[in-house]
């Protein structure tokens, strides 16, 4: 399948929007660097979702357009604005929150996700070294882990695979995968297609997925 071009699915912004819809009102959410950061722009203020950044902020509303303050950034170094009731704390307290199970959901980027929900997202073998940040702690500590990523690599290789080839972030940690082509749940029975992107068929999703997908008899199209 890697010889064909994959179908054009959601833009990065629409992946972020769809991932935002996974968040329960009132929940505490950590957003990974990159695409997940965009999610902050797509939540309804009325839902009172509170964003935590591992560098020690609880309660930022999104990327700031104001003057840059080097001491007021998210974990990706971007300037943020605060909501009323926001608080600051040190890294030890931040990971008490994360590792201790006090974060309702994390949305992270992914390099690969396996059939049993293993995540690989911190180490590209060709580059070595790696950058892990808080990803491993979030993967074991967040109550619900949502991966937001492109369905296939730039080279057209599936990122959803039988077994991750890239080094793992954590085993059996992913709950749901939101891509440009689909929303897929990790269930005890296996990966289950929940929704397809507009104009994408279940068969196309399956064709660009590197491991068997459970496909219910009726798979709705995302409403965006």
């Amino acid at each position, binding site marked *: 399948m890697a010889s064909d071009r994959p179908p054009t699915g959601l833009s990065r912004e629409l992946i972020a929007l769809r991932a935002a819809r996974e968040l329960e009102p009132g929940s505490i959410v950590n957003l990974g660097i990159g695409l997940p950061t965009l999610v902050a722009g797509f939540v309804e203020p009325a839902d009172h979702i509170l964003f935590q950044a591992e560098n020690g*902020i609880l309660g930022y509303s999104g990327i700031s357009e104001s003057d840059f303050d080097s001491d007021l950034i998210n974990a990706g*170094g971007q300037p943020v604005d605060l909501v009323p009731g926001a608080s600051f704390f040190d*890294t030890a307290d931040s990971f008490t929150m994360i590792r201790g199970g006090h974060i309702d959901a994390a949305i992270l980027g992914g390099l690969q996700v396996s059939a049993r929900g293993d995540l690989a997202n911190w180490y590209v073998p060709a580059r070595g*070294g790696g950058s892990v940040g808080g990803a491993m*702690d979030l993967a074991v500590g967040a109550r619900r882990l949502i991966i937001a990523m492109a369905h296939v690599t730039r080279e057209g290789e599936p990122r959803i695979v039988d077994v991750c080839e890239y080094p*793992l972030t954590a085993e059996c940690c992913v709950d749901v995968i939101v891509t440009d082509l689909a929303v897929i749940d990790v269930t005890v029975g296996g990966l289950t297609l929940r929704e397809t992107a507009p104009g994408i068929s279940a068969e196309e999703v399956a064709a660009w997925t590197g491991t068997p997908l459970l496909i219910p008899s009726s798979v709705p199209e995302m409403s965006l």
Partner: protein
Amino acid sequence: MTVEICDTPEAAVGDIANGATILVGGFVSAGTPSNLILALKRTGQTGLTAVANNIGLGDLLDELCENRQLARVIATFAIRASGTRSSRFEAQYRAGEAELELVPQGTLIERLRAGGAGLGGVLTRTGLGTMMADGKETIEIDGERWLLERPLRGDAALIRAWRGDRQGNLQYRLAGLNFNPVMATAADVVIAEVEEIVEAGEILPEQIATPGIYVDRLVQCEPVPVRWDG
């Protein structure tokens, strides 16, 4: 408990030994002791091990690679997934001229905390089943498996706060806390740069996040503007 007020950042870091392990506070641009890092570049110590959240993300720690001062880095962000912009450290790491120990952020802070708090190690699930567990002991407690991570301490810590008083008490602003308060507990010599030095009592007891007993040297300097643009 006596804190030494240094006239310049160079005076504050000058006697750090070649081969020392230095803890460097800050998180990308927030609470980063850039003046102390640049001073260390000028005082020129080599063979250093730097423990920091990140290197090469708009921080100035990467500057120490210009004259190959860093032999080893212990960090959470070091090598970027995409190769569009490369740091000096990345180049030296690839050339085998500098070592890297990558550590999950929550484990790094907890190892430093254990080092400062007299605890024997950290028992965490983070990293189990991954490369991070290679060569490390796991311990079973009541049927659950935990990874044992070692405490971490520095010969010196370079930290940054907003205000310091003449007893060394430190107050941080906004997200400037991050690694700084814990690193202040975990090094033999703690050196803090602050924007302003005030009299004892001017920082209220509730505003002090690092009590002065942890701080050995204080230097007042204008913050160096740093920013990461991804």
